[in-house]
């Protein structure tokens, strides 16, 4: 049963996989959004959700378009929706998609629309954590992002492909391209995920964080991988990926200075990566719809950017928390309070 409300803002969701299906569930739950799903494949959403479906790739006129299709199709869909006057949210974490979407910045500004790039668990939530960490420092010099786990099958394929490709690493203003699978570092994630060896990989977080932190000197991004992951990364996937991966986690290690004293803050989160991505995307859609309804003050300006550039962690992190995705801080071995906490 589809609720017909002429005044309800419309959101088009491209792709109903592990991420898109959850976004559809969250948005339809509110009851005052006209949700249209553009999909023909297997659906990750309940069949009885109150929404209409149209063939995949159809750009229905809408207020906000969510792109949750597999990597490779995001830029063309985003351009169509921007030209049609919609704000766009892309959940792709593929570097090729992210660079292509950032190149639509001029088109988004010309259309006076917002194109949110890399709105997932990492990047996406890690961009929000980096923005949140900004409050602990006078100056941020280093940001190191890491993630563990995969979402749906498309995410697993992207993880597999990314591990064999060169990563992006900023060092003293210059971009380096470390070999995929190199740079092993043992990192600790929140909760049951615990420790994992993490490696350079083709991850888009540095590309999205660099414009948001003008003074940063070092940016890295690593992904947790096993020996088997690294060994088979240069081969085709030997077995079909699972419908959805296990619980994953993200962490952001931020280094900088507070009152002249060097300090480090480590923030993280634990969740199913597809669920985490869907929560972040839903929170971003809520912010964009608030603008459509005319109730938002400020908010992101027109253009294509990552969430750290929006400087809206104080809005988006609590919004994500209401859906169950909560940030954690690593307090060290002697339980010293986090900087700035009461």
């Amino acid at each position, binding site marked *: 049963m589809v609720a017909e409300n002429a005044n309800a803002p419309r959101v088009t969701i491209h792709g109903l996989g592990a991420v898109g299906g959850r976004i559809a569930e969250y948005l339809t739950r509110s009851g005052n959004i006209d949700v249209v799903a553009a999909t023909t494949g297997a659906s990750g959403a309940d069949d009885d959700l109150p929404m209409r479906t149209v063939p995949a790739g159809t750009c229905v006129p809408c207020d906000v378009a969510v792109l949750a299709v597999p990597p490779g199709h995001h830029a063309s869909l985003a351009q169509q929706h921007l030209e049609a006057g919609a704000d766009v949210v892309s959940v792709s974490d593929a570097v090729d998609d992210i660079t292509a979407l950032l190149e639509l910045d001029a088109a988004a500004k010309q259309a006076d629309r917002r194109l949110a790039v890399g709105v997932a668990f990492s990047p996406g939530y890690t961009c929000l954590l980096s923005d*949140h960490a900004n409050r602990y420092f006078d100056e941020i010099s280093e940001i190191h992002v890491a993630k563990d786990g995969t979402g749906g099958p498309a995410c697993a394929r992207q993880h597999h492909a990314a591990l064999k490709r060169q990563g992006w690493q900023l060092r003293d203003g210059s971009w380096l391209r470390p070999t995929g699978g190199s740079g092993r570092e043992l990192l600790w994630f929140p909760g049951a995920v615990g420790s994992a060896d993490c490696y350079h990989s083709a991850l888009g977080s540095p590309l999205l964080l660099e414009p948001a932190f003008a003074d940063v000197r070092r940016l890295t991004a690593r992904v947790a991988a096993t020996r088997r992951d690294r060994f088979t990364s240069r081969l085709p996937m030997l077995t079909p990926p699972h419908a959805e991966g296990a619980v994953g986690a993200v962490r952001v290690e931020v280094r900088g200075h507070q009152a002249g004293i060097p300090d480090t803050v480590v923030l993280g989160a634990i969740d199913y990566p597809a669920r985490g991505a869907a929560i972040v995307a839903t929170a971003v859609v809520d912010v964009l719809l608030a603008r459509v309804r005319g109730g938002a003050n400020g908010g992101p300006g027109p253009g294509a950017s990552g969430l750290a550039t929006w400087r809206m962690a104080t809005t988006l992190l609590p919004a994500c928390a209401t859906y169950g995705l909560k940030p954690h801080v690593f307090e060290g071995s002697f339980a010293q309070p986090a900087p700035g*906490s009461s």
Partner: protein
Amino acid sequence: MIVFKMLRRAVVALGVASAIAGALRLRSGGGVPPASGGWRELHDSELR
């Protein structure tokens, strides 16, 4: 004579080593291995 000279040097070397070890022992407190800390969920008030 040579034997006495070697013994004297050995005694001096042991004395210097003992003095350094003693100084390091006094400077480092040792302490108790950490038994708390780790990850903590941020409260709503810390997010705004």
